[in-house]
């Protein structure tokens, strides 16, 4: 899928949106990524320099770290704030239906039949 978007579509994404995408791609994988790998992952004709600029901004904010012992130029996500947030989130979830359930979550649960139906759809590429 990646890379099929037109260049125009990428240019319409704001700096803030691209920042989210780069950060998300670092969190989505277990291993540190180089700017070139992030560029390939995000696709959509994103320029290497743009990826580099965004990484630098994320680094300045303390959201990503340079991988010291790994490959040169690779980045990984900083975990401290994310772990605190996870703790606060679990605490809120454990407290009962409120307050997180009151939010518009991206998706809620499935029945076993629904799960089977969705798996079929994804599996045969019918979507």
């Amino acid at each position, binding site marked *: 899928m990646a890379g099929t978007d037109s260049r125009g579509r990428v240019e319409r994404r704001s700096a803030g949106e691209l920042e989210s*995408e780069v950060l998300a791609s670092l969190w989505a994988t277990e291993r540190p990524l180089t700017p070139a790998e992030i560029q390939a992952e995000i696709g959509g004709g994103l320029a290497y320099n743009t990826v580099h600029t965004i990484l630098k901004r994320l680094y300045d904010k303390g*959201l990503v770290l340079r991988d010291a012992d790994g490959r040169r130029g690779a980045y990984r996500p900083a*975990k401290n704030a994310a772990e605190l947030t996870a703790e606060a989130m679990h605490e809120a979830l454990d407290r009962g239906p*409120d307050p997180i359930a009151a939010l518009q*979550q991206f998706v809620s649960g*499935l029945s076993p039949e629904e799960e089977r139906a*969705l798996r079929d759809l994804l599996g045969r590429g019918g979507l």
Partner: protein
Amino acid sequence: MRFDVYTPLLLSLLLPVISPAIGRRVAPALAARVLTSAAVLTAAATTWSLVLLATALLGDAPPVVREARENGRPLADPVPEVIGIAAGVALAVVMWRVHRAVRAERGTRRALRRLCAGHPADTELIVAASPVPQAFAIPGSPGRILVTSAMLSALEPPERRVLFAHERAHLTHRHGILVTAATLAAAANPLLGPVRAAVTFLVERWADEQAADSVGDRGTTARALARAALTAGRARPACALNFTDRAVTRRIAALQTPPPPRLWSAAAAVLALGTLPALLAVDATGDLFGLLGSVLA
């Protein structure tokens, strides 16, 4: 008065009946807005009707009744005493329910603010390092998007773009305010519960349509929803939660058909249905004050 004061209560039975059909046939952005407006107007009208009925008890107060006789005009009791008392009790319940709903909303906001702690203010994405797949929008200025690491690693890059576009739509169009308004309306008038449910579902559909627009592909949008739902389903036993309202499958099915039209006529009908109780309540107010005025003068 006798008629107008009860009609808002009767009309509020109609809105929940039509809201599922409106939700299916009308473009979600339009449907969510008109249903919320109608629900708020109706809830205000029914609450006010209860106030009027309870106030009408004043007409039964001994001095008022005596005066009514002294004037030589036998006063037809506008509201039977038992209804006036019932209205007073119902009003107390309404107040308690609204109070509880407001407190829950405040609790949610407080919990959300805590989730943002430690993250730079000018960053849209807040990642929670958690094995629980979760994603939701955090309203505010600026609004944030919280996604757990488990959710991020479950989705392909184009699907993550769908997720972000979906949550951004919630923030841009202030869906939190719509849902809060519908929630308070349903707290004030429990008959409006189904309308609240319809609005909650419609803001999701609305965000899905926006996401499909911004990634330019309904198929990818549907796939992102399916994968996120499957990931979330795996993480928690389906039987332990009563979340299975078929919401996700309905959203995915809706993405596999063309977007529904903006049916202005249906929207106007919903708004009219919401406005009517309000007008009747205003009319009943005039009647009541006229009546009390003529008695007390």
